[in-house]
């Protein structure tokens, strides 16, 4: 496959890994957080941990859109699906995320609610067109990458004159989450979590550009390398970070230059700015309330806002007490530090969100890497 195989070349991977091994200072460690679940998935799926030197540690970040959505918002989506005449539609992974009382959208569907999986926001608009007597709610989630398609869907619904299409908006912002991690006591004061640098988002950065990261690199003195989601992208980014750390530099560098510019996608950004505004605060699973970290629909588009059309419950619901998703999303704990991991929490029966999406740290470790654990549960 052209433009894919080039980034999955085993021989090049071995050369890159060898060069990282030579350049990494054996007298120190390198703790690098890959923010995005896409990177976490690539690292696990291609077994990159096996070829990186032992003193380079990858710390999994919170960049999995499914994982960071708090229980309360899942419950709210299930609630919406139960309202009169509603068809609730969303992306596939969301269906399995556990809400409270061991419910999920998938289970609510089995109980008779009309819940459908869509591949794109425009399918949701089509659903509203095809079912004029029903009210179609698109459960919108995701970082900056999935926000423009949601905006396009609302524009389209407006152009079609639809009055039965609504968006339950849960779009969140990457830079606020990175700042929250760097500001957390574990990183800033206690030093229990060592973070020497960041692998910056791939797809998110195609929209927002590399410029928004310049603030952290400067303010928190941590290097950031924006990287693509292919295995060679990740290895190259690790090498660039190791070099910056060795040189004592903390710049924003762009490994993913084939898709990311400094200013990002101006058209997408202006579309999003036209339709959405910042929420004062939004709850993230694992990070708690993060100021100015999420978007809501502007007044001008209120007719499409599910939160204005229905009195959607805004409750904050606590995670399962034993679930360590929060600490795992902050990089404080690893999946195997959680008592539930692999015992009662597996991808079939996820207790926490990190076990749901293939991009979640727990699901990635369970699915691809658990054979490395000394006391691995039997398959």
């Amino acid at each position: 496959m052209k433009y894919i195989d080039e980034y999955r070349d085993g021989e090049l991977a071995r050369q890159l890994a060898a060069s990282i091994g030579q350049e990494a200072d054996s007298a120190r460690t390198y703790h690098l957080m890959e923010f995005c679940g896409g990177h976490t998935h690539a690292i696990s799926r291609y077994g990159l941990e096996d070829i990186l030197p032992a003193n380079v540690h990858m710390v999994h970040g919170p960049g999995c859109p499914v994982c960071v959505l708090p229980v309360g918002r899942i419950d709210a989506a299930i609630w919406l699906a139960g309202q009169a005449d509603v068809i609730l539609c969303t992306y596939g992974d969301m269906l399995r995320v556990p809400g409270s009382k061991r419910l999920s959208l998938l289970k609510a569907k089995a109980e008779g609610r009309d819940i459908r999986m869509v591949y794109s926001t425009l399918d949701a608009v089509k659903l509203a067109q095809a079912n004029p007597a029903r009210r179609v709610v698109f459960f919108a989630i995701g970082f900056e990458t999935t926000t423009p398609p949601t905006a396009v869907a609302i524009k389209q619904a407006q152009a079609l004159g639809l009055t039965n299409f609504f968006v339950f908006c849960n779009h969140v912002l990457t830079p606020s989450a990175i700042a929250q991690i760097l500001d957390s006591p574990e990183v800033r004061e206690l030093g229990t979590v060592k973070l020497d640098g960041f692998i910056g988002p791939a797809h998110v950065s195609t929209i927002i550009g590399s410029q928004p990261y310049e603030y952290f690199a400067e303010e928190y003195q941590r290097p950031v390398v924006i990287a693509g989601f292919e295995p060679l992208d990740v290895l190259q980014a690790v090498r660039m970070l190791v070099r910056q750390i060795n040189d004592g530099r903390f710049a924003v560098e762009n490994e993913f230059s084939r898709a990311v510019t400094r200013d990002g996608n101006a058209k997408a950004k202006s579309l999003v700015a036209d339709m959405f505004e910042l929420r004062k605060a939004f709850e993230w699973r694992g990070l708690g309330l993060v100021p100015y970290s999420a978007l809501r629909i502007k007044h001008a588009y209120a007719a499409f806002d599910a939160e204005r059309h229905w009195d959607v419950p805004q409750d904050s619901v606590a995670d399962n007490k034993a679930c360590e998703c929060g600490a795992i999303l902050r990089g404080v704990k690893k999946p195997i530090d959680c008592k539930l991991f692999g015992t009662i929490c597996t991808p079939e029966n996820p207790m926490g969100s990190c076990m749901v999406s293939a991009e979640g740290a727990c699901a990635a470790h369970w699915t691809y890497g658990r054979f490395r654990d000394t006391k691995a549960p039997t398959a």
Partner: protein
Amino acid sequence: MTLPRRSHPRPLDLNSGRVDLTHGGGGRAMAQLVEELFVAAFDNEILSQGNDQGAFSVPGGRMVMSTDGYVISPLFFPGGDIGSLSVHGTINDVAMAGAVPIGLSAGFIIEEGFPLADLARIVTSMAAAAKAAGVPVMTGDTKVVEKGKGDGVFITTAGIGMVPAGIDISGDKARPDDVILVSGSMGDHGIAVMSQRESLGFETAILSDSAALHTLVAAMIAAAPGIRVLRDPTRGGLAATLNEIASQSAVGMVISETAVPLKPQVLGACELLGLDPLYVANEGKLICICPPEDAETVLAAMRAHPLGGDAAIIGQCDADPHHFVRMKTAMGGTRIVDWLAGEQLPRIC
């Protein structure tokens, strides 16, 4: 029907739980439903072996019987339709015991209002598939349900066959050091079906691999009667099927990413759809596990057959106590090839 022997973290909630789509997806949830409800209730030695067919002794030898329901959507797809699929799938389940298929039954559940022209097209295709395979449909049943109570047509076929003397093939017979082979490229069927889904709207030149594999099996066991395991990687694809065999046989497995045959079009479609081709269904491919000394002979026999031209050795069994299926990645790392969690593609067979 397949029964991996494994326990599940949480028992099936028979009081207030409900069937959801994962219970038919070929992954762990389905394995749990089969294990904790069906096998427990029907409780007998033949079913408990957990193969896609039941084998039993009759005067004059060993017979196998198998049954399979077909609910595929859409009914017609590139390279086949529900009719030919319902013949091939059940012949294959019989053949995976090394058996020579003798005959089939066919049960139809048809939705009120279903066009007779479509039904005729399906039945004609079934008849052609049965004739080409030399396995007649010997009995049948027809039911019609009210509009809205079915989705066009569902077909259930059952098949019987005789196992040649001296052949003993079963999912629990893999041993450490045994070699794992596949008969051709993986994932063609699932992608061909996916390409026809309205909501996806992509075009591909990929045809379903739907085919009856009994003549390939006959050629393989003629060349190497010591073959230990045969199974067709349908729902859940190569990954699920290897995991079933690993847990049935209590072995581990290591396969090589670069050795698994995959068509570029399938890889491209999987890339677009976010699927892992190892989990995509096949309907005309088989997995074979044989002692190391037979591997080259089996491979040559497969490649000499029209349905095994792209056959390849993809890995080996080992004594891993956790029965993990692992894969050496092209990058030089190792990862697990796990059971499918949930369902990847609904109603592909």
